[in-house]
């Protein structure tokens, strides 16, 4: 088992990326009851924006700041002018809308950037390696895990240490009541959706150098991200942390230990969790 540390670190890196993608997804679902199928497409958009910014400037850190901002604006526009209009017609319409958006974004990406993989190199300091557990390991993967941890801690601090956090958690329980207490819930929803989009954009930038940037990358991560929020419990940030790490490691060690079964392992885990605790590991009973 000399490969153990390598696969463990691989798992952490992929788990970190999964958390970045699923945190926004679970937040939007918990708050607005919208399962956003376009979330992964927005993540892909983040990766492509980043590709272009890197081509133009070569500045990874700049890309890491600008892409989330761009996605924040796109998310705000989608919520304000599309999602809010169909909200009164119920969940099915919201679901169909985000489903359609995912297709549109994917086609636009093919049209603008082409239907083939693009290589993204982070370069510089982050492109180097580091000695850890007695092995030489790419620093970038450590960086992915560290930034996921940072984002997770930041979100936890906002949710549990600020007044805004209290409002957000209350909205998860009962958004209509929050409205009746005098809070502008439509504005809160727009902010949450835009923040979720920004997170997906951040994850997209991070994913670029790790995975390849191609039009299928959205669907590739979407399934794992959905499994994360089902296993963790819909709307639970803590659940997303735990489930992301489990699934990251499962994907990583699955390839090492049961190569033929590795694709099925994720679904197996989800089935077991659903049978034992249908609301997910950290989900509240509805």
């Amino acid at each position, binding site marked *: 088992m000399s490969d153990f540390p390598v696969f463990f670190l691989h798992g952490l890196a992929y788990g970190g990326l999964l958390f970045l993608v699923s945190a926004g997804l679970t937040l939007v679902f918990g708050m607005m009851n919208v399962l956003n199928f376009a979330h992964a497409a927005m993540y892909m958009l983040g990766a492509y924006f980043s590709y272009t910014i890197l081509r133009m400037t070569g500045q990874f850190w700049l890309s890491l700041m600008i892409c989330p901002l761009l996605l924040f604006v796109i998310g705000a526009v989608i919520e304000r002018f599309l999602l809010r209009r169909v909200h009164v017609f119920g969940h099915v319409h919201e679901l169909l809308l985000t489903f359609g958006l995912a297709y549109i974004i994917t086609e636009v990406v093919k049209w603008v950037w082409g239907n083939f993989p693009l290589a993204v190199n982070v370069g510089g300091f982050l492109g180097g390696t580091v000695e850890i557990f007695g092995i030489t390991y790419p620093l970038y993967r450590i960086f992915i895990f560290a930034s996921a941890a940072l984002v997770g801690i930041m979100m936890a601090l906002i949710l549990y240490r600020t007044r805004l956090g*209290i409002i957000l*958690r209350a909205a998860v*329980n009962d958004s209509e009541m*929050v*409205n*009746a207490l*005098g809070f502008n819930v*439509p504005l809160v929803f727009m902010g949450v959706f835009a923040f979720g989009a920004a997170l997906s954009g951040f994850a997209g930038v991070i994913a670029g150098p790790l995975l390849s940037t191609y039009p299928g990358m959205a669907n590739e991560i979407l399934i794992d991200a959905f499994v994360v929020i089902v296993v963790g419990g819909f709307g639970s940030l803590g659940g997303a942390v735990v489930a992301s790490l489990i699934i990251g490691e499962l994907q990583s060690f699955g390839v090492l230990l049961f190569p033929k079964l590795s694709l099925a392992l994720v679904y197996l885990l989800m089935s077991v969790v659903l049978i034992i605790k249908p609301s997910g590991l950290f989900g*509240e009973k509805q």
Partner: protein
Amino acid sequence: MLEVKDIHSFYGKSHILQGVSMALKEGELVCLLGRNGVGKSTTLKSIMGLVKPSEGSIRFNEQELIGKRPYEVARLGVGYVPEDRRIFRSLTVHENLLMGIRNGAKKGGWTIERVYEQFPQLKQRRENKGGHLSGGEQQMLTVARTLMGDPKLILVDEPTEGLAPLIVKEVLEMLAAVRSSGVTVLMVEQNFKASIKVADRFYIMGKGHMVFDGDTEALLAAEEIRRNYLEV
């Protein structure tokens, strides 16, 4: 203070409110009675903006409420205490109370300290999750939460539903105390025997409209109305 004039509200295609009118003066505790399904809760929701009436007018201190969103109505000074209490289950008692404070609410009214003084039980439970409270405690919390926003008028939907008789008495006394503190109260009830001790005036609703308006004496005298619209 509040004047509801001939409002019509729908739930989908069913015509729930068919011309409801009522008026409240400042400082009153008014009780809206009637059987299940006649539209009492819908009347409160229409005032609050949670249901939008298709016709009529609702004026609160000379401002038209119809067309306003719930948060806008709340900011004008209308508090809503819903049926089923609707406590934020995963928030602590203290956080639930913090949720009641509105941005830009006047200082000098209800504060957390004053709420804890008035409801010592809530103080003891301040770090407990809202979902872990008993029915009576939840009812206190939901009223206290609304008071935190310094409302001029509170709409209370079936506050005694599902509570033991002893707790019912406590909750009604609490509402009477709220009224004494200067807040106007409009409360929906099924239990008229309990509410008769605290309310100044009563409305009775039949299917979608008012059938009675009067004080305690008039209500006790109106045997036929009570037989037709209240007693089972």
